[in-house]
């Protein structure tokens, strides 16, 4: 597959980066498939509904629907807080910014795709955003340039909090509530 070009802006300069087809794990290590077999014969998968109707998977579609069961207009995308998210252009159509990144940035990235790239940048890590197709949300991306080659890693940054002892033990540092003190006499009012 031919490489596709993206443009990245770092400072005042513009860097063209040729992006190849994503590297799948299967290409490196092979793959596993699961088949369901009985008496040496591969069985066919079907879908059963509660009334006993049997469908083959190709008979079934998973469709977006509204409360009435149909959708007359294309769905809109918004955040869980209700903020609308307009469609963003693919990285192949729109220039994105690039900045040098530290190891702390790279450690935060949960990768969902790896692309081999060709670019003219000094070795190091760089942060940018990427979306292969037009999408409402851009993916976090790290450009990893080594002397042997370069890769674009896309995914999402994961926030990991610092774990402090005080968070757990603040309970013991709180002022004592006078109501919690043991009464001198044991009350039996509850009975």
């Amino acid at each position, binding site marked *: 597959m031919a490489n596709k070009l993206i443009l990245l802006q770092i400072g005042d300069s513009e860097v063209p980066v040729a992006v190849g087809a994503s590297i799948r794990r299967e290409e490196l290590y092979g793959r596993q498939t699961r088949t369901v077999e009985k008496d040496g014969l591969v069985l066919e998968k079907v879908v059963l509904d509660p009334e006993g109707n049997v469908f083959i998977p190709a008979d079934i579609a998973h469709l977006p629907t509204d409360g009435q*069961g149909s959708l007359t207009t294309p769905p809109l995308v918004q955040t869980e807080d209700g903020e609308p998210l307009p469609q963003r252009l693919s990285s192949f159509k729109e220039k994105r910014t690039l900045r040098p990144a530290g190891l702390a940035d790279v450690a935060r990235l949960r990768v969902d795709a790896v692309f081999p790239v060709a670019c003219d940048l000094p070795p190091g890590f760089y942060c940018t955003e990427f979306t292969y197709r037009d999408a409402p949300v851009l993916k976090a991306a790290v450009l990893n340039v080594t002397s042997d080659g370069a890769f674009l890693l896309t995914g999402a940054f994961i926030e990991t909090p610092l774990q402090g002892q005080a968070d757990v033990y603040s309970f013991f540092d709180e002022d004592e509530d006078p109501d919690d003190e043991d009464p001198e006499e044991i009350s039996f009012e509850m009975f």
Partner: protein
Amino acid sequence: MKTTIHLSTEDGTNARVPLLRGRRLTPRTMRVTALGEEVQTRTVHRGNARVDAEMLTTQALVEGDPEIGLATIGRILPETTRAYRRPGAVGLEGNFQVIVTTYAADGTEKDRAVHTPRKANINELAPVRIGKRIPLAELFQRFVFHNQFHLGHEDGLQHEFLLAIARRLEAASEAAMLGAGPKGNQPLVLQTGGTPTRAFLLGETDGEKYRLRVLLTRQELKVPEARTVSATD
């Protein structure tokens, strides 16, 4: 569900500590209609995909619409069950076996075996061991990390244990490989039925606070051999 990892340092000190999931910084999205109603994905019968081509005569199409399946087309199927049958048969089959076939990167078949779900191995009698160290810069140039968790504590002893590990890793600017099994060299299986994965532990500290990331990898950062060969041809 709470996940616990039984972790041991190089000197044999060990503790069971919580394995926690971080928060994704990308905003979670939802699809809505123009009226703001949430869009749901439903399973729908869309027609009979498999109809014998010889039966699709003009007369049959006019009289019976065999490709549509009028009795059920368009029906929303709220609950469905996966089942198996012999190809072309009507009745369903039970007592079958799930066979896993392994193929090499070049597509040749390597192995066939009955599928047996793997058991989780991170909270066993033999703890997960902190093993081989690797410099951080090298780590990110060699592996692709598809998932990550972090370690937390529930009491002061666990806090001291984890803070000490984080300090050692941070001081050396290294990550440590985690290994399961009696020898501490097996990949981790986080949950029963899960996939074996290699894991590395990264440590950071800020005073008495620590951050211990567990980065999971199942892939090296390299171009497949087949692509490099075809590029040089």
